[in-house]
């Protein structure tokens, strides 16, 4: 057995995905806590909507939902291109995913600026901005990470040790997507019933 002592000869890359999945599971519990709080408030509050507020407009968020959910599939196709070795295909489709994410953030911004209630408008306003804001932060982080992956894809020899980073980021993107679906059902759909 040859014991060569080269610096950093121990490969850690195989563990990265395990660690990232553990992180995502843990992160989902913060959302779970917020969802639980929201549900409890919604069920127990005698007056849910603050005075003068009719409810939330659904059309714009629905378009946003469609964009975000389909972007998850687009990200999947980008990954497929990468696995097939089509680097430019990956970059283009990956960039489209980023654009869809950016559109989602823009839609969120438009919605926020059109609302007539604020963070201080009772529990309704507080939970709305907390949930959508915290999720929005995750979307922005996801776009940032995708940008990083896109930048890395131009480095020569970037995928010699595998494409764990892209897998992790697209997992993160699916995670953000699933969270949004739950959030959409809780905040926008439930208000009708």
């Amino acid at each position, binding site marked *: 057995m040859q014991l060569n002592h080269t610096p950093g000869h121990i490969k850690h890359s195989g563990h990265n995905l395990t660690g990232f999945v553990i992180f995502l599971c843990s992160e989902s519990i913060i959302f779970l806590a917020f969802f639980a*709080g929201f549900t409890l408030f919604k069920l127990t509050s005698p007056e849910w909507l603050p005075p003068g507020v009719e409810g939330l407009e659904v059309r714009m968020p629905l378009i946003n939902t469609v964009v975000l959910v389909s972007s998850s599939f687009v990200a999947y196709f980008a990954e497929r291109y990468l696995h097939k070795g089509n680097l430019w295909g990956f970059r283009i489709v990956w960039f489209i995913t980023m654009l869809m994410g950016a559109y989602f953030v823009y839609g969120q911004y438009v919605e926020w600026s059109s609302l007539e209630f604020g963070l201080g408008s009772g529990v309704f306003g507080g939970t709305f901005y907390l949930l959508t804001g915290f999720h929005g932060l995750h979307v922005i982080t996801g776009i940032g990470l995708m940008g990083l992956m896109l930048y890395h894809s131009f480095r020569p020899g970037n995928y010699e040790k595998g494409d764990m980073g892209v897998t992790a980021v697209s997992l993160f993107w699916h995670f953000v997507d699933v969270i949004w679906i739950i959030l959409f059902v809780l905040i926008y759909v439930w208000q009708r019933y």
Partner: protein
Amino acid sequence: MTSTKFDPRILKAPHPVPGAPDNWKRFFSFNTDAKVIGIQYIATSLLFLLVGGLLAMIVRGELITPPADLVDPTVYNGLYTMHGTVMLFLFLFPVLNGLNNLLIPTMIGAPDMAFPRLNAAAFWLVPVFAVLLMGSFFLPGGPAQAGWWSYPPISIQNPMGLFFNGEQLWLLAVALSGISSIFGAINFVTTIVRMRAPGMGFFKMPLYCWTAWGAQIIQLIGLPALTGGAIMLLFDLSFGTSFFRPEGGGDPVLYQHFFWFYSHPAVYVMVLPVFGIFSEVFTCYARKPLFGYKFVALASFGIVFLSLIVWVHHMFYTGTPNWMRILFMFTTMTIAVPTGVKVFAWVATLWGGKLRLTTPMLFCLGGLINFIFAGITGVMLGTVPIDIHVGNTYFVVAHFHYVIFNAIVLGVFAAVYHWFPKFTGHMYYEGLGKLHFALTFIGCTLNWLPLHWAGLLGMPRRVASYDPEFAIWNVIASIGAFMLGVAAIPFILNMVSSWARGPQSPPNPWGAIGLEWLLPSPPPAENFEDDVPTVINNPYGYGLGEPQVADEEYYIRRAQEA
């Protein structure tokens, strides 16, 4: 695995990170070696044990007489809040993460943690939030005063109308501590799951790894819930939301759910590794195999599961409906089952053994006795009628400190002594160690045993002045607390002088079984490197003639030659 090609010089090779210093300076740098990080964690946290202890002694000094005469009552509120916060977030969590860093990679034969840089980042967050937390003493309104649980509506008061008060700084520090703990937990779980030595199935793993694994899973599940609650509290305090303000439609009890969903299991995060320490130390110094290894291992996960469904027993007297009280009383009682499995296994391990009463063994025996006592008062507190009677009295304080100090901290001291020769390469002084144990054990008993009586008589907690009828219990308790302060002197003396000038330690001074004892003392930078032993047995084959690894003689010789 041929022994002839092995070159012992390789074990003395310099640190694998290029440019990292190899002398004492490495403890003050961003070093990614788990053993350096472990010692960084332990040294930092022991420093904060002194800080937290000093705060506690001021509190006990105030309580030695019934009237509030030593410090102002608002200062007193800040003192016990900061005492609790420092002890939990700056002493116990970091010290256990330090032990994890030292023990997990060496015990499972991994060269390092799975994510060394994340590991270092997790450690360096500790000084950052330590500075924040200590800095809150210098804020105009003083530090946070709402107790370590920070319940609204007290915690969302801002009577002085400050732009930035101690509570906000406290929340920020706790959030950073949470990030550090999550980084650590991801690292420990990944390391245990993916980096075990060949042949080391889960049921051949040392119990310390089982318990640390369970504890870190609790961190991953519970901590985010507290983070969620803390974010909402910070919003209430800073941005005018009303999540926990009843006047705005909010619910202060919801915070208590978030808080206890994490903070009850947090006690198990601290006690589980100590259960692991008990299992390692008792078998080693009783020279007997661990009784019921598999059951003790599985009981750890029984505790993990149950710890997540008992939190409401902290809220029996905060408007909890009766059906919920009964339900959570029941789940709380069932926790005694896996814990009892462990306690009986240790007693059965000790039974008929030839005990060597070294310092770590004494600390573990003391810790076990105290833990049994704390468990009994715990079951008492878990029953609704008694809890409603003694809730918010010194009985709760006494029970809590019996668990946290008398059992957990004694176990931590045992671990520090037991593995001191391994990771510093020097023996400690047994006499000073035993003096430390005697002072600690007598001090902690004097400190918290009498407070049970004070609590049963109805002395409320978190007050600077009290009825003179409780004076006698408080005088005894304060004497005990000052004794614990004195106990720090032989400990510091022992650690510093042993590390500086103590006799050299052989690779296995205790004749213990375990992969870490097959390494030289102190272990080289990457432990076994590529030459990891193949595990064939669990590490508790004392007196059975069952070696833990194949080719054991080779590894023993290798460690001695290095």
